């Protein structure tokens, strides 16, 4: 198990961020999601067709847990009769008041300019890389021949 808490770089607000191993790749299948806690922050990790994305699990509106919402596509239309659903499964709808967030960007669609869910960088990394650091394993036992998901937070 790797345990180096080496500070990597600074995030947007100037805070230090580090890389936290949070799950094995196969723990979160395509279309699935899982909530992890990293440095006391609840983060919901989504797997969209093998790509991983992480959002703070707190709706900017009234703080509902986004992980309890449904994943859906985005409805678009010019006028009635032209409605279509695009990017199925790539939006999370808040379980309370239904605001829609783009899982890839954290952007809200009702007010894209001002409402954004905090996004965390989520990537996959082969176990063999982990020994090189600067990864922090949270709750996951890691071994070198598997693939892992890490969050920068």
């Amino acid at each position, binding site marked *: 198990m790797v345990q180096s808490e080496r500070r990597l770089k600074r995030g947007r607000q100037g805070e230090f961020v580090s890389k936290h191993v949070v799950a094995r790749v196969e723990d979160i299948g395509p279309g699935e999601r899982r909530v992890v806690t990293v440095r006391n922050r609840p983060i919901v990790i989504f797997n969209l067709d093998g790509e991983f994305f992480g959002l703070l699990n707190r709706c900017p509106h009234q703080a509902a847990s986004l992980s309890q919402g449904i994943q859906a596509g985005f*409805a678009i*239309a*010019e006028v009635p009769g032209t409605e279509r659903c695009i990017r199925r499964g790539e939006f999370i709808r808040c379980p309370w008041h*239904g*605001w*829609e967030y783009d899982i890839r960007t954290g952007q809200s669609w*009702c007010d894209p300019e001002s409402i954004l869910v905090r996004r965390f960088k989520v990537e996959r990394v082969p176990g063999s890389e982990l020994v090189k650091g600067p990864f922090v394993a949270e709750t996951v036992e890691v071994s070198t021949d598997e693939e892992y998901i890490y969050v920068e937070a």
Partner: protein
Amino acid sequence: MPELSEARPDGGSNGTALKIDCDVHPGVPTVEALMPYMDDYWVDEFRNRQIDGLEIATYPPNAPLSCRPDWRRDGERPGADRDQLSDVVLDTFGSDIAICNPVYGGLVALSEQMAAVLCRATNCWIAEQWLDRDPRLRSSIVVPAQNPILAAEEIERCAADARFVQIMLLVANELLLGRQYYWPIYEAAQKHGLPICIHAGSMYRYPTTPSGWPSHYLQDYAATPQLFTAQMQNLMSEGALARFPGITFVLAESGISWLPPYMWRASRTWKGVRGEVPWIKRAPSAEVRDRFRVTLQPFDVTDDHDRIEKLVEQIGGEHMLLFSSDFPHWQFDGDDPVPSAMPEHLVRKMRTDNPLSIYTRLREDK
């Protein structure tokens, strides 16, 4: 086509800003006055059956609101005297142009044919008896919304006369106004660049509230803003706003102060159920600011400078208000329809710039 007014719409560039009153009500005295504009069949129908008294239920002629006491003339329908209207609205209130909204029985008739005949006659009567005689007057086209095909034909007929500057609909009809049923009206409006004025007044096809019929006229009139909110929700929800991007909707005699809470609530709901109406692409509050304008009277806001500024900020800014006296309805006393605390920058905007920006026909300097 008659000559346009000598009043020169100039938008104020030379310092003598054109002042426009966007809602005044000439009264049709009796159905007899419209007979010259009907064919014989209808003249006989009205005469032989003694059909008269076609003032709409929203404005009972003797109700205090329907005519300011000092403007009442014994034995006359409110607003029926053209000289009085010109004297008060243009001379006393100091406007250069007034837009007539003749609210009469054609708008509410149960028979589509009678509706069409009355609306057509009303438009002809306005043109000949009012617009021809005072070049400072303009009018809305009144249409039989009971039959949108006939309504569109009437728009086509009147649109050739540039003194008709918009189309008027009542705020409560057979169906809510966003429905595709009405789109022929909007096709014609968009084609001719005419705003749609939605004016207070009801066909009384449904109880006047979602919870049944109240006992009093006062309650019906008090509920008018509710009808406006219903139409705004429906125009958005049915995609009419999206389908006719060229049309500006004027809320006339609606009151104003109900707008912010409506905009906030409608926006909150939309954020949650947007997928049901995906053609609404931005929050209803943004749609309102872009696509709707509202007339001044009845001014239902506390007459206080800061409150007025705040309200105007909330509804979207100084471009939203259109000056109106609502003559002869009794909405205010004295000689100035502008509330005393109205900030000066808003007065100029609502009397001149805002009307000119939507009534393109007032800009066509001939």
